[in-house]
Structures are given as structure tokens and as C-alpha cells.
């Protein structure tokens, strides 16, 4: 006889990897989504108690308050250097950095390049929202051509300010990197794909296979001066053509993995 269950099934609840505090992010900011994905992945892999995160400078400077793992705060852009030190001293721990585009692609360019070049066994979560969010919406290295920001009020002029830097494509050329992919957070289906990518990035580190990075196309409704929903539309319509989604470098061992 089948057992009768009348208890409701809990389909989804807030992961324990997130602390029980109200975040300071603006309404609709996709930083919250990426925090949640990291928390879910670390919970699923059972790595939360031995993970050390490195927080950047930027909007996500308070990531240590929201993610329920050990955390350290790095100087602006120096998170990969700090993560290198932590991972070399404590190879049994899982070390990841969480960086925005101003932190990683601008001031931290040297650190990320050399960490990838050395093939450091760390994971980098790179949040690309094409703008400096915390300081008030200035032009970042990843700002789209023609995009209006507070420091490019007539739109990014490529003759003066150059073209956006595509970090995933650059880092995929590094011999030390094992898993370099770009995903987007503009739609529930793509959010699920992003979660799988984050899982594979951490699996790369667990297997000791070298540098892994997941670039997540993200939004900044406040500084783009649009509603949260229009910001997601902007990612789909304008950012994805410039920053195409895809796997830029995947080690064959990781490609075989089913998550």
C-alpha cells in the first residue's frame, strides 16, 4: 500500500550558504543571484566549511557579510594575488575570488593575468556589468561602445576610449587555465546554466586542474537608469552580442563531467 503523505513538498528554500541578513544591493541587482548560486553550489558539494572566499573592492565589497563561508577582503584588484597566497599555504581549502569588472579587468588586470598564467588552482567568479557600480556609474573597461555612463555622457567613443576588453577570450589563451566560460544572468534558464558553470569551476579546483573562471553577465539597474526588468532586457539585447556566451576553454576531463 502506498504511504499517504500530506506534508507539502518544499521545492525551494534559501540556501544555508547565505547568511540571514538583508543585503545592501539595489533592488533587482544580479549580484544577489550570483551570491545565491555560489552558496547553492558550495552547499551541494559539501565544501562550505572548508571554503575561503576573497572579496573585491566594488559593490560586492561586503560579500563576506552575505556568504556563509570564511572570507578575507583584498586590496582593489588584488584578490587573485591574495587567493594565490592562501591556496599555496592551505592547499586543502577551496579558494575563490569574487570580482567585478572594474576590479578584475581594470586595476586588477596584472594579478588576474599572472594568476591564470601560473595556472593557480583557484576559482574566479567574474561579474561583468559593463560599469563601475559602487562609485556612481563611470565607464569601465567593459563598457559597450556608445554606452552612456557618467564619465562618457555622450556614449563610449571608441576612438578616444577604445573597445571593451573581453576577459574570457584573453584568459582562454593562457596555458595555465583549465575552465574559462561566459554565462549570463538575464533569464531563469541562463541562471541555471550559470549555476552548472560555477559547479564545474569548483570541480576543476577540487581536481587540482588549475585556474578556472566563470564570467557572468550582470546588471546594474541603478546606474544604467532602467528598471530591473529592462536591465535584464539590455543584457540580452545589447551585452550578449558584444560578449558572446560560450565555453572558451574547457579541459577535456571537465567536459566529460556530468553535473
Amino acid at each position, binding site marked *: 500500500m502506498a504511504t499517504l503523505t500530506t506534508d507539502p513538498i518544499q521545492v525551494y528554500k*534559501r540556501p544555508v550558504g547565505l547568511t540571514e541578513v538583508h543585503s545592501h544591493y539595489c*533592488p533587482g541587482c544580479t549580484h*544577489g543571484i550570483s551570491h545565491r548560486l555560489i552558496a547553492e553550489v558550495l552547499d551541494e558539494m559539501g565544501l562550505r566549511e572548508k571554503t575561503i572566499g576573497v572579496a573585491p573592492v566594488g559593490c560586492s565589497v561586503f560579500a563576506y557579510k552575505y556568504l556563509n563561508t570564511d572570507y578575507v577582503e583584498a586590496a582593489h584588484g588584488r584578490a587573485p594575488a591574495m587567493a594565490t597566497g592562501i591556496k599555496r599555504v592551505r592547499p586543502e581549502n577551496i579558494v575563490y575570488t569574487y570580482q567585478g569588472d572594474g576590479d578584475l579587468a581594470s586595476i586588477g588586470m596584472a594579478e588576474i593575468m599572472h594568476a591564470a598564467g601560473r595556472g593557480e588552482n583557484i576559482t574566479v567568479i567574474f561579474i561583468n556589468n559593463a560599469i563601475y557600480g559602487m562609485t556612481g556609474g563611470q565607464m569601465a573597461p567593459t563598457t559597450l561602445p556608445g554606452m552612456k555612463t557618467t564619465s562618457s555622457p555622450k556614449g563610449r567613443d571608441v576612438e578616444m576610449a577604445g573597445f571593451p576588453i573581453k576577459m574570457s577570450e584573453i584568459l582562454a589563451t593562457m596555458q595555465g587555465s583549465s575552465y574559462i566560460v561566459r554565462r549570463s544572468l538575464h533569464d531563469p534558464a541562463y541562471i541555471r546554466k550559470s549555476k552548472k558553470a560555477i559547479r564545474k569551476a569548483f570541480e576543476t579546483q577540487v581536481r587540482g586542474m588549475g585556474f578556472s573562471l566563470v564570467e557572468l553577465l550582470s546588471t546594474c539597474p541603478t546606474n544604467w537608469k532602467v528598471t530591473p526588468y529592462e536591465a535584464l532586457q539590455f543584457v540580452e539585447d545589447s551585452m550578449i552580442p558584444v560578449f558572446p556566451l560560450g565555453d572558451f576553454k574547457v579541459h577535456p576531463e571537465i567536459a566529460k563531467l556530468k553535473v
Partner: protein
Amino acid sequence: MPVKGWIEVNDLYCKGCELCITACPVDVIQLDYSRLTPKGYHPAMLKSDGCTGCGICAVICPDAAITVYREPKKAKVPTA
């Protein structure tokens, strides 16, 4: 007969960004304009029956404010 489900929105986290409203495939979420959260936002709420408990609102929620429940399928009671 679709599966019956429901959501609970935590006022501590919800910021009324409306992303769950735009993502809901059956369009049963709205902002509750009769209430304010401690931070001064109108939280999301279920406006009518029809929720299937698919969990898409929870996937897109930036603040992990939504808990999704689903009613279990009724087990067959043997007739003999």
C-alpha cells in the same frame, strides 16, 4: 489538473524589484501595496490561485526571499 503550489516571501529580504512578477509563467505574483517591509519596499505576494510550484520565481529572485512549496500528489487509496 495542475499541481497546486504556493510561495512564501520573506519580508526581511524582498526588495520589490518585480523580477519574479516578470518571470512567473502563470502570472500569479504581484506587489502587495497594502504592506511595507522593514526597509520600506512593497513585498511580492501571490495574487490568485494557479501557482504550480515550479520555482522559477525563486531562481530569478536576487535576494533569495522566496520559499516555494508544492502540494504532494494524492496517493492512490486501494479500493479493495
